[in-house]
């Protein structure tokens, strides 16, 4: 599903933020990416969404070689990837319903389908009652649920999350992680960047550890001996 071969990314010449990374993530996997601040985790995700270009190496996502992907087709490519961020990145000028519906308007779903699918998705993330609220009126956990609903509404094959629980209290963090887990159980490939080692240990998934841009370990479920 996601294959990186000898990928290096330097923001400044000679100082790699990611150094010779080789990763292979299968369809349907749930993977944690962990590492200290500045180890290159966000850089890794941005390469996958083609917000950044690698300095060298090859990235293939869902059969698409990102180097060969023309800039004009990047929007279409991104529609197959759901993105969730620590700071939620909701559109502040519209309500919960419109935030989720926006992802569908972008792909030109018919208004009738939008009216059917958005409420379904909102009830799946437990926000059916708050569809008219503005993001500002929601708690962090609720905002993150909206973001997840938006990321999933178009049924992407891949969900990428950059510290999705970073701004949440432990109970909300667990709720969100469990939500991501259930999404993965339905077949979506999920990649989660996190600092929350407690959750990582408890969930028993594949864990890739980065350190100063280098991949220092890649532990499959059950292998962890930390």
């Amino acid at each position, binding site marked *: 599903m996601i294959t990186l071969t000898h990928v290096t990314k330097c923001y400044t010449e000679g100082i790699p933020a990611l150094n010779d990374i080789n990763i292979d993530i299968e369809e349907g996997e749930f993977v944690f990416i962990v590492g200290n601040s500045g180890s290159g985790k966000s850089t890794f995700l941005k390469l996958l969404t083609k917000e950044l270009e690698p300095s060298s190496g090859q990235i293939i996502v869902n059969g698409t070689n990102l180097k060969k992907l023309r800039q004009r087709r990047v929007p279409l490519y991104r529609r197959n990837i759901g*993105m969730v961020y620590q700071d939620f990145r909701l*559109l502040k000028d519209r309500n919960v319903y419109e935030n989720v519906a*926006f992802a569908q*308007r*972008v792909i030109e779903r018919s208004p009738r389908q939008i009216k059917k699918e958005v409420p379904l998705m909102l009830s799946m993330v437990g926000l059916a009652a708050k569809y008219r609220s503005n993001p500002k009126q929601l708690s962090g956990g609720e905002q993150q649920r909206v973001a997840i609903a938006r990321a999933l509404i178009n049924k992407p094959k891949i969900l990428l999350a950059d510290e999705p629980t970073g701004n949440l209290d432990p109970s909300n963090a667990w709720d969100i992680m469990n939500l991501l887990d259930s999404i993965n159980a339905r077949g979506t490939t999920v990649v989660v960047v996190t600092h929350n080692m407690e959750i990582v240990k408890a969930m028993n998934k594949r864990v890739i550890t980065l350190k100063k841009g280098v991949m220092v370990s890649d532990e499959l479920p059950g292998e962890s001996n930390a």
Partner: protein
Amino acid sequence: MRVMHKISTYIYTLKQGIINIGKNKMFSLASVATMSACIFLFGVFYSIVANFTNTVKGAEEKVAITVFFDEDMEEDAIKAIGEQIKKRPEVSKIVFVSAKEAWESYKEIYFEGNEELSAGFEDDNPLANSANYQIYLSDVSMQKTLVKYIEGMDGVRQVNKSDVVANTLSDFNKLLGYISAAIIIILLLVAVFLISNTIMVGINVRRDEIAIMKLIGATDFFVREPFIIEGILIGLMGSLIPLGILYFMYGNIVGYIVEHFVFLNNIMKFLPSHTVFKTLTPTALILGVGIGYLGSRITIKKHLKV
């Protein structure tokens, strides 16, 4: 590449454009006001120029020059003079009026109702030497030149020119045209600048949102279109408002002049509103919408890297 979109998408982007204007009220209002002022001035100048042009044309349709010949001229000689005058490019029409015809029309005017009084002159036409050519001009501004030319011809006794007003009007009309063109160009530049600023503010306020939209997979069209719509709507409002005001004013002002300045009404030939607005309305709309579209297009290209 041109991509067709669903109708629902156009409706959505239209809504977003309207919302943009609502969120950016102060700047939008300023843009609409400036645009309105431009189009209004344009309309005023257009109306004036159109009326002067109409008056000049009316004058051109009237007899501009009458040519009388030396006494007892042969018919052939008169014909030769006519042929020569006809060759001049500024002459649109030339009509021969014989002495008899001249007398007939004179009679009609001066002995109207007392035709028997004129009977005494019948055998001895008092206007025996008043056979003439009536020359109609295609370009009144050439009147002076033509008169000079004809006066220099053999066999011509006298040349009467009828209207000097037309000439002056024609010059004035040209001057007015230049002035209005200059003013309008300056104002339009100001309007483009203001619309461009309005759109720029809108883009800057929504930088984060635009970035998010693009991460979700919004195409350039989706991100840009609302801003284009915003520009077009500003242009549309900025032309409809002054058109409404102009329409209301035009009828009233012409009516007032006709009533209170009789001498002006004698010189001028005023156009009815529907004639003026048949051209002015589409021109103003195209101008307004065009500027709105252009202003937003330029800005997006410069400030919205998508």
